[in-house]
Structure formats: structure tokens, C-alpha cells
């Protein structure tokens, strides 16, 4: 929640698109969506992040992040069929757009660049 606030206040909201990078959590969300492929809606996305990254995600943070990524053009969504188990409400399925993939690559590339030569520091001791 705190993280989200900070992102809200100081996040790279008004930067030029070319200079945009993704935050750590945004990257996690996008990677989870890629992992889930067709089945990517909010419930499994949260579970995926929890299972793979071992990080329990605040529900509110996930919704705001998805919304923000959609505004950036990194994600697109469409509605599924309403199901009785959801009280007759449809699921919203997410997929990563081409721009999104580009953003993700750029961010990860930047991280890789910055990490170069630091293997000795970053690698875990055997």
C-alpha cells in the first residue's frame, strides 16, 4: 500500500514515453500475465505472483497497477462471460500489448545493463 502511494506521488507519470520504465511491481504483474497466457485475470494473477515471487500482493495495489499499465498502453483487457460463482459478474482478462512487451524489455534491459559487472556482488554465495 505504501509502495503504491509512493508510486502514485513520485511515479514516472508524466515522462516521455520513450523514457518510460516499469517499476518492479509493474514488471512482476506483466510477467505474471505472460506466464498465465490465456487465463490471466486478477485472481490467478495475484496467486501467480504469490506463488512464484513469494510476495503477497495487496488487492488494491494490483487493481491500480493494472489500470495504470492499461493507461500507459502496456496492457489491454477484455471481458469474459459472467459466471454464477462470481455473482453474475464477468472476468476481465488481461494480455500484454506490443508496446507493453517493449516497455518490459526496455526495463529489464536497463536493469541488466546496470547489473553488468556486479555479478560478484549480486550472485549469492554458494
Amino acid at each position, binding site marked *: 500500500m505504501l509502495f503504491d502511494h509512493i508510486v502514485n506521488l513520485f511515479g514516472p507519470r508524466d515522462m516521455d514515453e520513450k523514457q518510460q520504465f516499469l517499476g518492479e511491481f509493474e514488471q512482476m504483474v506483466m510477467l505474471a500475465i505472460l506466464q498465465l497466457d490465456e487465463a490471466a485475470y486478477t485472481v490467478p494473477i495475484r496467486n501467480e505472483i504469490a506463488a512464484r515471487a513469494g510476495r503477497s500482493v*495487496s488487492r488494491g495495489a494490483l487493481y491500480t497497477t493494472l489500470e495504470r499499465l492499461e493507461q500507459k498502453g502496456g496492457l489491454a483487457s477484455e471481458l469474459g462471460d459472467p459466471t454464477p460463482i462470481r455473482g453474475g459478474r464477468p*472476468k476481465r482478462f488481461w494480455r500484454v500489448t506490443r508496446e507493453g512487451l517493449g516497455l518490459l524489455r526496455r526495463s529489464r534491459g536497463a536493469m541488466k545493463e546496470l547489473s553488468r559487472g556486479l555479478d560478484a556482488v549480486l550472485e549469492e554465495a554458494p
Partner: protein
Amino acid sequence: MNRFATCPPKLAERLLVLSVPEGKFRQTMLGDLAEEFDGLVATRSRFVARGWYWCQVVPLMVRFGWRRRAAAHPIRGGLGPVGGGQWNPSGGASGFVLGLLSDLVHDLRVAVRGLRRTPGFTSVAVITLALGIGATSAIFSVVSGIVLRPLPFQAPERLVRITSTEDGYAGDNVSGANYVDWRAQSESFDEMAGYVGAGFNVVAGGEPRRVTGAVVTNTFFNVLGVPAALGRTFSPDRDPPSGDRVAVLSYGFWQSEYAGDATALGRQLKLGEDQYTIVGIMPPGFEFPGERQLWAAARYQVPDPPFDFGDDPAEVRGAEYFDVIGRLRAGVDMSHAQSEMDLIASRLETQYPETNAGEGIGLVELREDIVGSVRPVLYVLLAAVGFVLLIACANVANLLLVRAACRDREMALRVALGAGRRRILRQLVTESVLLSMIGAGIGVALARWGTRALFALAPADIPRAAEVHTDIWVLGFTAAVAIVTGVLFGLAPATRVFAGTSLSSALVGGGRHTGGLGGSRLRNALIVGEVGVSLMLLVGAGLMVRTLQTLNRVDPGFRAQNILAAYVALPSQKYIEDAKVLTFYRSVLERVRALPGVESSGAILSLPVSPGINGDIGFEIEGRTEYEHGDVHAGYQLASPDYFDAIGIPLLRGRVFTEADREDAPLVAVINEALADLYWPGEDPVGQRVTWGGGDDDEADWATIVGIVGNTRHNGLDEEVRPETFRPFPQSPMPFMTFVIRSAVDPTDMTTAVRQVVIGVDSEQPLSKVAMMESILADSLGWRRFNMFLLGVFALAAMVMAAVGLLGVLSFSVTQRSSEIGIKMALGARTGLVVRQIVWEGLRLSLIGLALGGLGAFGATRLMSNMIYGVSANDPLSYVLGAALLAATAVVATLLPALNAARVDPMRALQTE
């Protein structure tokens, strides 16, 4: 599975819809939550799932509610809650509500942070409040269930109890013929019903046992307006008098006897000698009159009499043996009905002067009739526990004041940074309401436990006990109490904010500010109040202790130690001949006497100090036509020869009964001292003759008085001794008697042996009301003991809290004044002087409190007048002891801070200056 049961909490969903802005997320969010909720219901439980749902919704509300508001007013939203709560035009009405809500959330967060920073303070405050609120809501749930809640019948306000009154005394039973006339002649009632409590011997399936039931007219359930849970109740059309014998079972009896099997309907049940058809099962919780296991339809137009009259009881006007209720016609009020019944009563009086002279008809609301007697007691207890809660509040207020004094700097800073006083006030109140809400939460749990404990202690005859539970009213009451108390003690520190703490002095003072005169005055006033209220409770408890002391000293007139009592009621159809009844009782007595350990055993019609037949019967004295004391009435008893010896009633003159006083011997009687003093003052009644026969000249009806025995407190230790007549039981046998068995060994061990004896004589005959005479005696004081115990606990709690409060205030004052004390000591003041000064400071407050509390107790104990016995409400001993106990406690509570003061090191105290 029930679809509805697995829906997420509706309220939570609605709140979420309110706080989340409209858009694509709201529906998705709700859907996700519903889906995960469903999963939890399947894997865990509905309860867990609901709890989880709320835990999810609250943070979402805070987050999105906030955003929604921030969107409406970016600057304020961005900066957080500086102003807040104002009406926000662009947000509309819901924006305003959300604004308040998010301010509240912010205040709550700050409050939680503040409370977590001071765990010591928080836990003391919460525990104090939990105990105060818990005790209050425990007592309130009893008051609510018993006194406040309407009776669980249809339109209960129209139900009235209708009684015969004699010479203005209400509450008498009604006779068959009178009831029939009332019912026929009155216009004010939709319907009337008669009922009489009755025990039934049940033989089927195992050991014979006795169940308590009632024989009721076929209008009974119509009057109450309660349908059966299963099957049907009685109705005038389907169950005419002399129709088939039918019975309705209570839910509990159905569960225990038939394991809740629906095929019980239509089955036969043998009660005594009669076969009944079970036609219905009542819903759980249906209790009238009192707790019953079954209801049997009367075989006459009126309830069956306890023993056979030989005539149709509906035509008998002299025997008053059952109770009547009626349902007022809609729109008819009590006074109208009363005047109509008065008219009917006077008509019957002229028509049947022999039986109805002086007899009126009394109406009383049914609820009043059922709970009227316990109401004052419960109200006194509620008031007492309310006082305890007040003390708890005062203590927490004191803690908050001390805390506020330490937070002057923080408050001053906030004011300096532009926070309005109103805003700060709200923050303070939020904090205290939060405290009391946490206290209330724990308190409710304590209350549920406490209510159970209360009932374990409460006397068995408490009415409507089954209706007491933690319901929405109790929860509402607790929440209201929590909010009110929270605001009350939250305002105490707030007064400091308004008192105008100077910014510079607060900042410079560095948090060791002296609290100010206003603060200390308020703290002192709270202590005075606590001590005063504690004294009121102590005096109340003292009066109850003295009452019980007096009652325990009252001589019951018999020796209760080592006596077992057991009641036997023979079915009147099976024991239709007197000879059979006599044979039964004689053989049981004979065999019981032969049991090892039995010293003596007897039988009596009605056991002293126990609820049962307390019939007074008119009698005549030979040779007298006019009596000084008006109507000649006395208790009517049948006793076996050894009864007096077994229970330990002393013989004063003449003789008691012997085996020779048989059914065919001349009639004899024994009277008690009270009767002798009343009608033969200064004379010897032995040899005089009396009759109960109604004054015929039949020589055979006169019984000669052969002896005088000591008095017993038949109606209870707190009741006057009543005049009594005893007859030897063979001379007028009745099919129900209580055995009284005195043994050398612990008589509880004898229960099985006695039961075996009875079964040996009649294999279908159960024993009931088997109890030790000592516990019967103790139970007769049940209410008083209950009151004493509760008042005692409350008083003790109050006293401890007052002491803790005093200790806290003085300790704080010593800390605040340590430099002053240090200077004094540096200037040569002796330790003794300093100690004396602090002790005096505390004692002064306590003495003012004691004086005020004494005055308060003088007024409040007036309410207790019918709870106390043998002691005046102004009993000086209770006042003096209460005051002394409190004063001693106060001295102890002041000593600790005083000694601390004496240990102040002058050098260090001066250095910090």
C-alpha cells in the same frame, strides 16, 4: 448447498460499491471477491469466508474511497486530512459522506498508532473498560431478556392474568364455575383459558419418571396465539371436553424422548393411567406457565382438578385450584375490562354469597405477572453495575488526562501547525471511542461468558431464563454504552485543549508540563466520585450481607441437617380407593425405616420452605361462632406419626400422632403454637375440638386436638410463621405426599435405596423433587444470595478501581511535583512531613467522596427496601464498615506514591529544573 448462504456479506458489497468509483474495476473487483469468497466457503467455512471478505473490503474502501475524494478535491486530498469533513459540492452528498468516512479512517489510523505506542496505557484502559462494559452488558442482557423484551406470544400486550381476589388480596386461584361464568358473561375478552400445573408419571421406556406439565383448556393456545412447530395445538372445535385425550409436547421433551422423530405425532403416550395421543410439538423456547415438558388437554370445560371431586369441576364454585389468562379484545383497555369484571364479580357475589362473598376479580398484565417480582431486583443490579461502569470510565478518563498532560507538546505543535481545535477534539474523541470499542468487543465476549455464569448462580425459579441471550438489542446496547462512555471520558482530556494551553509554555516545558489547575481539579473530582460510588455499592452489598446473616439466624422450626426429602404423587385413577393409597405409603415408610442408616422417616402433605401446596383451609372451633381474628384459616397438613420426629419439630404439649390414629379411630388433630396463641391465648387447646368439614352437625367430623408442636417457617425464612393444623394422614388420605427421611449417614447416598423401595412397592411409581432439606433451605434464599454475591462483586470491583484510580492520580501528582518536593527536602523538610502531605492529599479526596457517597447511599438504598430483611436501609453498621473499608483502602493506595515522594533525591530533582 443453499445458494443464499454462500453469498458474500451484502453490506460489505454495498459499502464497496459506494466507495469504489464507477468504472470497469468495480464489477471486476466484486466478481473477484465473490469468486474467492466462494472458494473459501468450500474449503474453509462460511464464517471464515465472511470474516475474510470484510478484511478485504475495508482496505479497498479506504484506498478507493480516498481516491474518489481526492479526485473531487485534489489539493486537500493530496495533502491529507487537514480540514476534512466539509461539504464538498463537486462530490455531492455521497462525497460528503465519503469525506467524513475517510477523515474517520485517518483519525482511526492515527489513534491506532498512538495506542500502539503506549501499550501499557492501552492495555490497562482496555481491560478496565472491557470489565466495566462486559459486566454491564451481561446484566443488561438478563434485564433485556427477562424484563424488557415482550413475551414471546402473539400481541402479548393484550394478554392478562385473571385472578380471584379476596378482601383485596390478588393472585388467588379460580374455581371452575366462576371461570365458566366469567367467560360467558364478559365482553372485553376475545377468549379466556384455564390451566393448572400438573406432574405426570411416565412409565414407558425405562425407569418410571415424573415430568412436569400442565393441564389446559382447549382455548389455551388460542389465547397465547402460538402455533405448534409440528402438528397442531388444541382447539375448541377439534378437542371438545370429554373428547379424546390429547397432548402437545415441548420441543425439549420431544428431543429427549423421541430424538426429534416426526413420527412421534399421532403416537400414544401413557401419562399416569391415561393414554394420550400426541398431536403437536411446540417450538423451542415456548414456556408457559414456566418451563413445562408437555401440555394435556383438559377433559372438562375447565382444567382437571388435582384430585377427583366426584362432580364436574366446571360446576364447582368452592374449590379454587387453577389459573386463568385472557386475551383482551383489540382496542379494549385494562381499565375498561377491569370495570366490567368488577361488575361480574359483584353479580356473582349476590348470586352465590356462600362461596363468593368478598371475592373480586383482579386483572394484571401477563408480563407484569411473570416478571413483576424480579424486575426491581434486576433494576437494582443494573444500577449497581452501571455505577461500576461509571467508575471504570472515571479511571480511564483519569488515565487519559494523565496521558494528555504528557501530550501537551504534541497538541501545541498541532495547533501551531494549523490544526483547528475542533479537529483535535475529534481526534481525541476518536481515540477514546476506539478504546471503548475495543473494550466493548472484549466486553461482549466477557458478557456472554458472564451471562452463563450468572445463570449458574441464579436461583432456579428465575422466569424466562431461556430467553436470555446476546441478541441485537444487547449488542446495540453495548455499542451505545461504548460510544457514550468513549465520548464521555474522551472529552475529559479535550477540556485541556479548550483550556487554552499556551503554545510557548507547552513547547518550552518539554512535555513535563504540570498539567494545569483545571486538569488536576477534574482528576480530583473523578476520584471523589469514584470513592463516593464505591461507598454506595459497598453499603448496598453490606445490607445484603446483613440480610442473609439475619436470615441464616432465623430458626426454621426444624432441623434440616441430614434429611432427604422426596415427593411421590400417585396417579389418582390407579389409587382411587383410600385404602390403596394408605397401603402404599405405609409399606414405603415401613421399608424405608428398615434401610440401614435411617434414623426416622415420615410423610407430610406439604414440605416447609419449599414451593408446593401451601393451601390454607378454613376450619371451625367447637362452641365458637364469632372469632376475634375474622375468618378462621390455617395451613392444612397431613402427617404420618413419625414426621415430627424425623424433621425435628418439637412437641410442646400433649402428644403427636401414633399408629393408633388410624382411619377408623376417632379423629384427632395437632396444631402449632402460632394457632394455639391465636385462638386459645392463655388457655389449653388440648382436648378442644375443631372441624374442617364445613360445619355440619355431623358428630363424626369433629377432631380432638391432642397436641401442640413448635412453629415452622412454612412459607420461607423471611415470611411470618403461619398457624397450622395437622391431621394424621390415614384420616383423610391424599395421593401425594413428601417423604422426609433422617439418616445417620450422608442422606444423598440413600437416594437410590429409597427409589428402589418405591419401585419395589409399585414398579410404575417415580420419585420426584428428591433433595436434601439443607439445600431446599439454601435454595429458598437463592435470590438473596444471588443479589448479595453480585452486589458484593460489583462493590469489590468498584473499590479496587477506585483505589487504582487514587494511586494513579497521586503517583502522577508526585511525579509532576518531584522538583517541588525536592526543593522542600533540600530546604530541610523531613521525610515524614512529605509523606504526611501526600497521604493527606489522597485522604482529603477520599473523605469528601465518602461524605458524598454516604448521602448517595442514603437515597439509593431506598430502592432496596424489598430486597433486605431484618435490617434497616439505614443500618449504621453497613455504612460504618463500608466507609472504614474504603478509607483503609485509600490509605494503602496513598502510601505507595507517598513513599515514592519520600525517596525523591533533592539533588536530582533540582538538576532537572
